[in-house]
């Protein structure tokens, strides 16, 4: 999320180990061991893909973040029913928005070193607001004319085909989208830009025989976000556009026209929430770093999501606390 200092202080007050609460969502802890994760049958249902969703990792060399991320990766890969791939949910590194060139390099290098050493699974990346380099020109000491300014740096460093793209997974198509956009009034706003929206419409149109899962960083829809911080102004709920997509109504309408959209997964809030609206499930999937590597955040433990997408359009999700303790 955008105001990390605020969160870090609040953590001190609210940091109980409250919510292993986490595990709650659909108790799908029933998998027997397997060799190949996809293509096996679970409760008589054929599985298109099993993936681990790791969001809000916020890597930097300090805070024991590398050790924590390593623990999470090992935990994922030692699952008895091992996932087919890892998909990140953005905010992979601590912050590039206000990072000078050399500090940006340290963060991305740290991330890549850990992946090279610890991750044998294929990994796909989603871009979060903190993966965007230099938008805070003052602190990052950038002009905006640097060839890798903005999202280009992350796209290049992590070998993405584009800032948004699609993954085919059996009967499902996973659309990886980019939520963060430059805003006139402050640093960024949460939405899909026109170019991306048109691509999304086209994807839904040309994949009508498939079930659709969207993965993007900032939640399209969340109620829990209203309870995080003091969002009441003059007797009204007032929510900054950095916290939840502002084009939600347009997306809700689009999904209503395209009933094959089943699942929208996000991060950003470092909270765990599941909601169903118009037959689409929206899951905000916690955070690998919890409260920025300072302990759990509100009710949410450091964790990751395990998703099973089935050939019949259904899915299971569980949030896994990988056991990280801050000393």
């Amino acid at each position, binding site marked *: 999320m955008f105001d990390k200092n605020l969160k870090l202080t609040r953590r001190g007050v609210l940091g109980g180990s409250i*919510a*292993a*609460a986490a595990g709650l*969502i659909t108790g799908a802890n029933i998998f027997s061991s397997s060799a190949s994760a996809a293509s096996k049958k679970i409760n008589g249902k054929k599985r298109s893909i099993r993936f681990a969703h790791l969001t809000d990792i916020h890597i930097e060399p300090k805070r024991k973040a590398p050790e924590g991320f390593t623990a999470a990766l090992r935990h994922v890969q030692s699952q008895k029913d091992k996932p087919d791939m890892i998909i990140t949910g953005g905010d992979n590194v601590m912050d590039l928005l206000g990072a000078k060139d050399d500090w940006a390099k340290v963060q991305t290098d740290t991330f890549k070193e850990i992946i090279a050493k610890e991750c044998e699974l294929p990994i796909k990346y989603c871009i979060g607001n903190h993966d965007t380099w230099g938008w805070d020109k003052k602190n990052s000491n950038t002009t905006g004319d640097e060839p890798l300014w903005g999202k280009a740096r992350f796209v290049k460093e992590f070998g993405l085909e584009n800032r948004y793209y699609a993954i085919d997974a059996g009967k499902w198509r996973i659309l990886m989208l980019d939520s963060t956009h430059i805003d006139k009034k402050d640093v960024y706003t949460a939405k899909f830009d026109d170019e991306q929206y048109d691509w999304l419409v086209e994807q839904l149109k040309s994949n009508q025989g498939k079930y659709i899962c969207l993965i993007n960083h900032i939640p399209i829809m969340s109620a829990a976000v209203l*309870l995080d911080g003091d969002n009441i102004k003059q007797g009204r709920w*007032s929510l900054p556009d950095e916290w939840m997509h*502002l084009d939600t109504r347009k997306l*809700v309408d689009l999904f209503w026209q395209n009933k094959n959209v089943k699942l929208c997964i996000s991060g950003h809030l470092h909270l765990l929430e599941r909601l*169903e609206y118009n037959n689409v499930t929206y899951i905000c999937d916690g955070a690998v770093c919890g409260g920025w590597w300072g302990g759990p955040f509100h009710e949410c433990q450091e964790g990751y999501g395990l998703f099973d997408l089935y050939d019949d359009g259904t899915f299971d999700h569980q949030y896994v606390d990988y056991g990280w303790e801050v000393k």
Partner: protein
Amino acid sequence: MFEEYKMINRRAFLGSSIAAAGLASIKNFSFSKNSQSIKNGKKRSLRFAHITDIHIRQEHNAPEGFALALNHIQSQKDKPQMIITTGDHLIDSIGEDDSTTEMLWTLFKDIMKKNCKLPVKYGIGNHDYWGVNKKKSKTTGNEPNWGVKRTLEELEMESRYYSFDQGSWRLIMLDSIVPTDTYCIGKIEDDQFKWLEEQIKTADGRFMAIFSHIPIMSVGAYFYGGNNEKTGDWVVPGSRMIINARQLKDLFRQNANVKLCVSGHIHLYEHIQYAGVNYISGGAISGRWWKGQHQETQEGYCLFDLYDDGTFEHEYVDYGWQANLPD
């Protein structure tokens, strides 16, 4: 003290997993003959129909629609044991004069008498506060049955908030309305909040379902009414979602047996799971005030099964009403 808080919340975690397991099979009702029967090996504490936002009026064949809904509920093969409302029985009494309000109550009660053989528990909605808009309703505020009193009398309610126990559950009905000069805000004010704390404290191992007209947690609140995103931030009036929701969420975390919160008001169906509690907005009997479905939600009601083990199932039922509008 702090340790104890942690312990309580670990229990919250366990309770939730069980509840969530039940949710996986929503909409898989196997109908049985006896309401208190054993279903899927689980003993049932209560089966009820939740109806909300009836908004009875003479126009648009509303009386016929309401009668249809009541008969639809009572002709369920697995018939519910009772009906629970969460308010807005009349199209309005905030700004209606004495004689119109009288006419509407007569209409409502007449339909109930003719069409409903089940016991009914009533909840208070904002439109059940007679005369709050004094100018429009031509009231002074000194009428003996001004405000909520009129509804309490008409529906023979002993109190505007109350609780009752059924099997291993405690059902708690709140009055979420705090009237303003012309309308209301959604809030559980201090006295009632203390009463609620006491109800939760004395539940004696029972599981709890909490009812309120205005939702405690809602995403429908973003889409209800006008353009809530026009300023570039999300601004949701305090009349759409209970303004002390965070205080309630924190209260619920102290007792893992709070499982379910059911509400109305926004005429939309949604289901949110957050921090171990399920928040369900149950659409509306009247849809868009008897002018058709409201956004994507059909005219309908919710069927709930509460089980002895603290799990529950629910289903939103479209009772098949087609709005009859003048050309």
